[in-house]
């Protein structure tokens, strides 16, 4: 299915990551954004608010808070509109409640978190990458989720489309984990023609309305979806439910449901995984990074290579589900994995787990507020070669 040209601003632009993400959403067919202002993500909502009356067929609303924003986009998606919201750290915390509802009800939606320094109000105008574990585990209960980390305005545009496609394919809220640097850096963004943008359609139920079972899984573990007003008169709930969507309070139903919610992502982890590799074959050290940190790492890697050191790079575009298979393989072939991230060890521990003692894992931490000093990343690489 191709993109609707009305939402696609084809051409070369000079955009910051926030604006590019808004354009990515529009190009992906998003026609409902409910949000609440918070630095450094507000520009996404502002761009959408300015554009949607001109694009047509959609609506923006500034809700009273992030609880309401996240809740409203679930309603919007159930009514048949591609829906998204956008926030930063403190607002992301508030969204965790209804993110869980979206996971339980299996609602295709996209949530952008333009990460800033935390905890709490932290550094509103400065970058962080410390919400990565919150993205994975922030809502209560057990689940799997998809999270993508763009590292440039172009990628903010491109991966918004990927995010919407994943959310439709797997019926799961999909997180776009940007950071303040990516959100506020301005670069060239090329938006392709609508007929070059491939969209994943909703997995629509087309059978007789009276026979519809909203949570009967297909072979791929994903149930078919309808929208409110289609005449299927379905029920959906945040409670543990059976195939009819009716609450069932017992361990058997819980096991069936939660296992499927997890397996539909976990068993497709390799298919979902997007990584970029560079010179990993024969490398002694591989630097693993995501988001803005992967760009900051480039000069450090280049410097090490100029000195004749064998350094590869593995960039994680999707961080959740964790691209476990590739990291496990890689760990068997290198001396060390070096992980620069703007926190004191989040994705690092996932990598350490997957390395399983086969390679040393070296964290290059940073508390946030600014990107890494290139010298620190270089020192991490040198440490890995010892």
């Amino acid at each position: 299915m191709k993109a609707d040209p009305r939402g696609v601003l084809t051409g070369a632009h000079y955009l910051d990551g926030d604006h590019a993400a808004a354009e990515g959403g529009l190009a992906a067919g998003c026609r409902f954004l409910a949000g609440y202002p918070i630095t450094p993500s507000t520009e996404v909502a502002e761009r959408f608010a300015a554009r949607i009356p001109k694009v047509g067929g959609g609506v923006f609303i500034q809700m009273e808070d992030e609880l309401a924003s996240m809740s409203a986009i679930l309603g919007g998606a159930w009514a048949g509109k591609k829906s998204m919201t956008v926030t930063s750290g403190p607002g992301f915390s508030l969204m965790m409640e209804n993110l869980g509802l979206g996971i339980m009800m299996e609602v295709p939606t996209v949530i952008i978190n333009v990460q800033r320094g935390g905890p709490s109000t932290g550094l509103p105008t400065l970058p962080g990458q410390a919400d990565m574990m919150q993205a994975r585990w922030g809502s209560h209960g057990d689940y799997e989720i998809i999270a993508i980390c763009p590292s440039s305005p172009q990628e903010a545009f491109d991966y918004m489309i990927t995010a919407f496609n994943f959310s439709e394919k797997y019926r799961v809220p999909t997180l776009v984990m940007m950071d303040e640097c990516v959100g506020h850096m301005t670069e060239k963004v090329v938006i392709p023609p609508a007929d070059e943008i491939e969209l994943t359609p909703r997995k629509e139920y087309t059978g007789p309305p009276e026979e519809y079972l909203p949570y009967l899984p297909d072979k791929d573990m994903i149930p078919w979806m309808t929208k409110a007003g289609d005449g299927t008169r379905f029920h959906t709930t945040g409670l543990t439910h059976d195939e009819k969507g009716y609450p069932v309070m017992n361990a058997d139903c819980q096991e069936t449901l939660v296992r499927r919610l997890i397996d539909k992502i976990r068993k497709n982890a390799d298919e979902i995984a997007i990584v970029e590799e560079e010179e990993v074959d024969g490398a002694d050290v591989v630097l693993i990074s995501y988001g803005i940190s992967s760009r900051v790492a480039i000069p450090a890697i280049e410097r090490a290579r100029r000195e004749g050191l064998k350094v590869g790079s593995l960039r994680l575009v999707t961080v959740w589900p964790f691209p476990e298979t590739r990291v496990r393989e890689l760990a068997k072939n290198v001396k060390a994995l070096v992980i620069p991230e703007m926190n004191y060890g989040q994705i690092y521990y996932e990598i350490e787990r997957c390395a399983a003692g086969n390679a040393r894992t070296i964290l290059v931490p940073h508390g946030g507020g600014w990107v890494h000093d290139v010298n620190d990343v270089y020192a991490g690489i040198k440490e890995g070669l010892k």
Partner: protein
Amino acid sequence: MTKETTVTEETQEQAHPMDELLRMDRMPHIWCPTCGLGTVVTALAMALDKSGISLDDVAVVSGIGCTGRVAGYIKVDSFHTTHGRAIPFATGLHLANPKLKVIVVSGDGDLIAIGGNHFIHAARRNMDITVICVNNFIYAMTGGQVAPTTPLTANASTMPYGNFEPPFNIPYLADSCGASYVARWSSLHVRRMTTAFAEALAAPGFSLVEVVTPCSTLYARRNRLGTGLDLLKFYHDNCEIEHGADTRSLDIDFQSTIKLGKFIERRRPTFLESLDDWYGQVFGDKYEPYAGATSE
């Protein structure tokens, strides 16, 4: 009983009049004997039936609590959401497909305490949804804790010596935030409640019907008020109907007069009317009105 009823094949085949409106495969419901919620659901089903609105176009959204379970029993597209968030969820449904008739049915704790912020803003925006607030004066599902509607001096498990917090006057709250339609009835007043639901559904903008209902298991028992039936008798003897009453006069004190009626009915532009009107002025003919458009 003067005549014995025998179940014949013929009587078995007869459909229940509520078959089309309720999820009979979910009966019996979870509510206690003499709870008012069954009456509220019946009244809503009757109002929907009479309204002539296609049930395919109706969505019911509930939050959490005893009333939160309403969404599960009405045979329309129905959403049992998170605690307090029924109104923003309903807002999303309505905005994404304005053709839907979106009804929120939830309790006083859900809508006025944890969801209070959403309630006031939906009323302020005059979002075109209908809200039915079932007020039993207590948190029933969790075992009888104090609510923002518990009358002064009434006992609750977290006000074990009686409530000293002043309660909200819900119609006054809705009125002051700009709601288009505001009424209060009790679950004893079935006919009037049904009419109010139908009027609220027809009213453009944010419409609110508060329904005072007995909670026999928690509120009545903790306060030694007898059974749900005793509370209905109390409503019978102590409710006063005063249409158009000043909403400031609608406080509910412990076991004293409860004023009922239709208090507010006014026409104010809804959120989407304002949006389309304003963008029409700003963009002129280039603007394609949103609200009339169908969802893809």
